[in-house]
């Protein structure tokens, strides 16, 4: 009896936090259905199918896509984009709300859960959600004919890793925001949207002016897109793949350390 009152182990504490979000989500999943499933689906139809028909008709596309149809070229990249977008969204307003409006983080840490466990629990939850919506997304892509092989499952893993790296950094930033979310609009418009546009999602990065290209190299989404595309098209090249993996893992590590520290600092005061 007394043993059950001992503080939970580290991993178990994180799971308790995830369980909290899951409980909430089970009642409110409809609220996020539009943004997490419908939104990427619309992008897929507009660009993969609509714009794709224009590209494939033109014939100038083969050089860019390496011979596959535009839809097949785009699909794994959209997987990564939607992971990054939902990671960014889930780690801005919801995190600020946890500190400021609903204050659930304060409630959680009033018990034996530590701020670090809350931060990790939040990230684990976001990652789980990205994996879930990504899986649904893959089914949809397959239905419109954008899947060529089982490699797309590895693309999903790459997308989740990319999303987790972005989520950890954005979460760390959100933990420092005190006022209303004006700062988030700046993040969306100056970071997330340019990242979506300039990371080789819709076209190869070498089609951009030379001055803009370095932007892609620092963008986690570019690394994620490259990985996801290699996996989906089965065109692995060892060293670039390891490089992308290392970059994303390093970002994730930095993000997790920062988020843990900033959560601890904010919840301790």
């Amino acid at each position, binding site marked *: 009896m007394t043993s059950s009152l001992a503080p939970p182990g580290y991993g178990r504490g994180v799971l308790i936090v995830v369980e909290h979000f899951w409980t909430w989500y089970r009642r409110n999943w*409809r*609220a996020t*259905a*539009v*943004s997490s499933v*419908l*939104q990427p689906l*619309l*992008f897929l*139809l*507009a*660009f993969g199918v*609509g*714009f794709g*028909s*224009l*590209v494939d008709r*033109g014939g*100038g*596309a083969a050089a*860019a896509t390496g011979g596959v149809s*535009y839809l097949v070229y785009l699909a794994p990249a959209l997987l990564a984009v939607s992971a990054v977008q939902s990671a960014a969204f889930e780690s801005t307003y919801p995190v600020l709300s946890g500190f400021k409006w609903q204050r659930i983080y304060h409630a959680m840490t009033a018990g034996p859960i530590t701020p670090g466990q809350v931060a990790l629990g939040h990230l684990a939850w976001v990652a789980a959600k990205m994996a879930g919506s990504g899986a649904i997304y893959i089914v949809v892509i397959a239905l419109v004919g954008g899947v060529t092989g089982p490699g797309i499952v590895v693309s999903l893993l790459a997308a989740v890793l990319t999303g987790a790296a972005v989520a950890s950094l954005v979460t760390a930033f959100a933990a420092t925001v005190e006022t209303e979310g*004006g700062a988030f*609009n*700046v993040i969306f*418009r*100056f970071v997330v*949207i*340019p990242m979506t*546009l*300039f990371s080789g999602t*819709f*076209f190869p990065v070498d*089609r*951009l*002016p030379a001055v*803009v290209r370095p932007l892609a190299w620092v963008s986690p989404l570019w690394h994620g897109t490259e990985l996801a595309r290699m996996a989906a098209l089965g065109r692995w090249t060892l060293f670039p793949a390891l490089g992308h993996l290392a970059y994303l893992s390093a970002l994730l590590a930095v993000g997790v350390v920062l988020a843990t520290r900033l959560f601890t600092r904010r919840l301790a005061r």
Partner: protein
Amino acid sequence: MTPLIWRFLPAGGYAGRPGALILRSTTASRRAWLAFLSGFFEPVFYLVAMGQGLGSLVGALPGPDGRPISYAAFIAPGLLAASAMNGAVFDSTYNVFFKLKYARLYDAMLATPLGPVDVALGEIGWALIRGGLYALGFLSVMAGFGLLASPWALLALPAALVVAFAFAAVGMAATSFMRSWQDFDLVTLAILPMFLFSTTFYPLSVYPRWLQIVVECLPLFHAVELMRGLTTGVVGLGLLGHLAYFVVMIGGGVAVASRRLDALLLR
């Protein structure tokens, strides 16, 4: 259009001072200048990335008169129209709802001589001023890239304001029926498909005929056609037809919004 409004309004709804709200908005955005500036950059990012990158995949596309134009020249007017829509809808839905329910700003304003009509006109006025500045900025960028083909392009600025007003009026009317944040999913559901499918990024000809008819009913389609005609200099009486669409939208939006203002602001 102002005298028409009076018939719908209760006595005491207007103090003739919407300018005070615009002053409030300009003061506030001077502190949040980065967020203010971001609204200008968003369509420019799209233009640079898509115009260059996607353009390299498809080459030239047929313009309004069938003659080929560069992909950048094709999407730029579409982005101008879409950004007028997005800004106006955001301001008249999310922003209004937030100020109403969370910041309770309108409660504070209505305790002064200001009435619901001052609030509505002030907010729409500010949305138009801001939208107008963004449109002006975007048109300058287009000019810089050599994407303006004729002097008719000057009319794209007032046209953007008409489009923005129409979407703001309808957005305000819609907001008066909103109960919670969940309802705003419907706004996304209306705006995003419009942004993606209203010939912003590729011509109507990619769709089967039945889908073309659906797209031709969407307001953003008419905004894009209007802008594309003006910036490429292919101007005909048809443009007045597109304009008429927005006149009807403005009439309907203002009529509903002004009737519902009390429901929205006074309890």
